[in-house]
């Protein structure tokens, strides 16, 4: 029970960061990606500060915590170990980037906007979930 409460709170704090940082505002996201507007002063670089702030804190966490014997509520640290840069990684990232640019939502803000995103999210989120689950099933089927 304690584990669930702490993880729930982590989700709440994550969402707070997304909302306060501006990541849940699709117009702001697109204004950040709009580097064609740098010369005219239209470009809004503020989302770079979201990433900078998150990296500062997360880098310390990843430097310190995995040295501990184990997390509070799990038997060990379970962190990604794949280092390969392959076609799937780059093609996937490219497709994701196109979708992100088109709508201004990445997965975290899309989920955090469930109750506030109106028709935008009513269309975007189910499509995203379908894409995720089908792709995962496809990759799993191919691997076996």
């Amino acid at each position: 029970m304690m584990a669930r409460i702490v993880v729930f709170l982590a989700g709440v704090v994550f969402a707070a960061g997304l909302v306060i940082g501006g990541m849940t505002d699709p117009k702001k996201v697109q204004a950040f990606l709009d580097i064609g507007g740098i010369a005219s002063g239209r470009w809004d670089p503020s989302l770079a500060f979201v990433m900078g702030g998150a990296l500062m804190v997360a880098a310390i966490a990843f430097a310190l915590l995995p040295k501990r014997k184990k997390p509070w509520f799990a038997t060990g640290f379970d962190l990604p170990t794949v280092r390969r840069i392959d076609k799937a990684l780059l093609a996937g990232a490219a497709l994701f980037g196109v979708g992100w640019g088109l709508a201004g939502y990445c997965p975290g803000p899309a989920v955090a906007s469930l109750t506030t995103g109106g028709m935008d999210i009513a269309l975007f989120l189910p499509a995203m979930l379908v894409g995720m689950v089908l792709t995962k099933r496809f990759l799993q089927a191919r691997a076996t």
Partner: protein
Amino acid sequence: MHPYLQSLIGGVLIGVATWLLLAAMGRVAGISGIVTSAFTEREGRDWRWAFIAGLIVGGALFAWLFNAVSIAPRSPGLLIAAGLLVGVGTVLGSGCTSGHGVCGLSRASVRSLAATLTFMGAGMATVATLRAFGALA
């Protein structure tokens, strides 16, 4: 408050949440991975749904507190296509803005750097294209 400072504070909160999840479960806070596995895997379903519930409740609470916007009316077809691309792309590419952009980069992963540069580049090219066709406000 200056918008840059506000964004920096938002980023620090995302970092704190990442710290919390790592300390509690020993996992990276990659949202696309957490959401996908919540639907497709039996193991770890509890903590993943607890985190997702926190995201939804926190998103509602702070949008209300800060009067934040998350709507920009677009054509339904564009939103559905964008959702599919984000869903397929993040699973094929093993991560999104949080998993690669925050967790991967803070672990000095070259793989995540390659992914982050790719999705940022693709996002920028897409917005430039939208603007070229006059499809951006």
